[in-house]
């Protein structure tokens, strides 16, 4: 009986709540906001706990390097540009860049220790006239990620640069800056002399951080064209073996040799929920509850023909529906 009274107090306009459901009072909205923040904050510790009980909560990304190449070429084809061909050296360089970001925990084109993106081209002995790099993280699927790049003028310029002839892509899962994520490194190049380069090191041994899964995204551009002096310096006519000794030891995985793209997940269990999905479900539940309560309140008070000094239910509904609509359509991903 007490439960029913409480529910009526919360959701039914009556004398005890001044003829306005308690959840629709200003304090009610504040409580829901606090609940939302609390839920969001609790996701991180919940994930740590659930990791011990199974892979229930985590980030799941279905991005593959081949899809990235296909969609990139598809975008170029729309503009009548030539198709990029996959170069294994660029794949290696992209893989090394991703491993470097995980090993040194940074998200940028230039590493905190000053390592330039071009260093990874050099390490695999890829000689280029022009090169470029796009980065992305936290996307759950390839379409959204490429769409995000295309929405950014600087990333789009890289993808649409007609000087590029070759492409290399790495898709690597791991923990970056405390968050499980999928890093995508996309490298472009115009090989010196326009001849595709073949290296004996078509496969490379790299360290792959323990694969977990992500959501959200980010991408950063760099100038597609090298400074003149850098281009000259890179255009060495001699092909040499990649000098792995230049790579930090943390980037070398001695036990496994893998193709540089589409690295498999060693703990291949896809999480049931991603934090973003759970957050959306919870927030949408809040919105549905409030909208239903607002509709019910309007209906009851209309029949009672009682005058109250409260906010406009219809306006609240309009705003909450708009928020719900955006929550449903919201796609993770950040571009920087």
């Amino acid at each position, binding site marked *: 009986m007490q439960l029913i009274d409480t529910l009526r107090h919360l959701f039914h306009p009556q004398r005890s709540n001044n003829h306005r459901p308690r959840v*629709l*009072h*200003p*304090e*009610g*909205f*504040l409580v*829901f*906001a606090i609940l*939302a*923040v609390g839920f*969001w904050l609790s996701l991180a510790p919940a994930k740590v706990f659930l990791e011990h009980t199974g892979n229930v909560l985590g980030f799941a990304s279905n991005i593959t390097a081949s899809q990235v190449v296909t969609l990139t070429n598809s975008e170029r084809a729309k503009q009548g540009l030539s198709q990029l061909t996959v170069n294994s050296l660029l794949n290696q360089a992209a893989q090394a860049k991703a491993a470097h970001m995980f090993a040194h925990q940074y998200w940028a084109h230039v590493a905190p220790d000053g390592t330039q993106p071009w260093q990874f081209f050099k390490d695999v002995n890829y000689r280029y006239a022009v090169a470029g790099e796009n980065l992305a993280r936290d996307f759950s699927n390839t379409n959204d990620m490429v769409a*995000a790049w295309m*929405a*950014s003028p600087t990333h789009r310029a890289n993808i649409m640069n007609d000087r590029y002839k070759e492409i290399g892509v790495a898709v690597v899962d791991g923990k970056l800056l405390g968050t499980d994520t999928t890093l995508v490194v996309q490298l472009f190049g115009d090989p010196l002399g326009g001849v595709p380069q073949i290296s004996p090191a078509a496969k490379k041994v790299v360290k792959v951080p323990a694969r977990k899964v992500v959501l959200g*995204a*980010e991408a950063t551009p760099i100038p597609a064209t090298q400074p003149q002096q850098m281009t000259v310096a890179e255009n060495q006519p001699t092909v040499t073996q990649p000098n792995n000794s230049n790579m930090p030891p943390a980037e070398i995985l001695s036990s496994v040799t893998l193709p540089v793209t589409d690295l498999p997940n060693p703990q291949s269990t896809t999480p049931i929920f991603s934090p*973003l999905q759970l*957050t*959306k479900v919870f*927030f949408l539940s*809040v*919105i549905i509850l409030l909208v239903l309560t607002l509709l019910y309140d*309007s209906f009851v008070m*209309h029949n009672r023909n009682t005058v109250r*000094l*409260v*906010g*406009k*239910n*219809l*306006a*609240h509904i*309009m*705003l*909450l529906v*708009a*928020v719900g*609509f*955006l*929550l449903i*359509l*919201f*796609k993770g*991903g*950040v*571009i920087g």
Partner: protein
Amino acid sequence: MQHELFKHRLAYSILLAALVLFIFGFMVVWPNHVQQRMLIAAIAIFYFIWGVVTHVKSESFSRRVMFEYAGVAFLASMLLLLVTL
């Protein structure tokens, strides 16, 4: 509700237009989350002001009503802000 809509059709038209613009803008600026957050803050402030102005004009304003609009605007902005973080 229809009566309410008709009685304040100008106010609701303005609100509807602002919400449509907000939705459109939110989608267009993706994946720039900084701009999305700016839009969220803008619509929250607009909604609060819209509520106050509408109630003042209809002579139904009170501090409680003002807090209610502040609460709804705050809740709506938090729900969207948190998913962009």
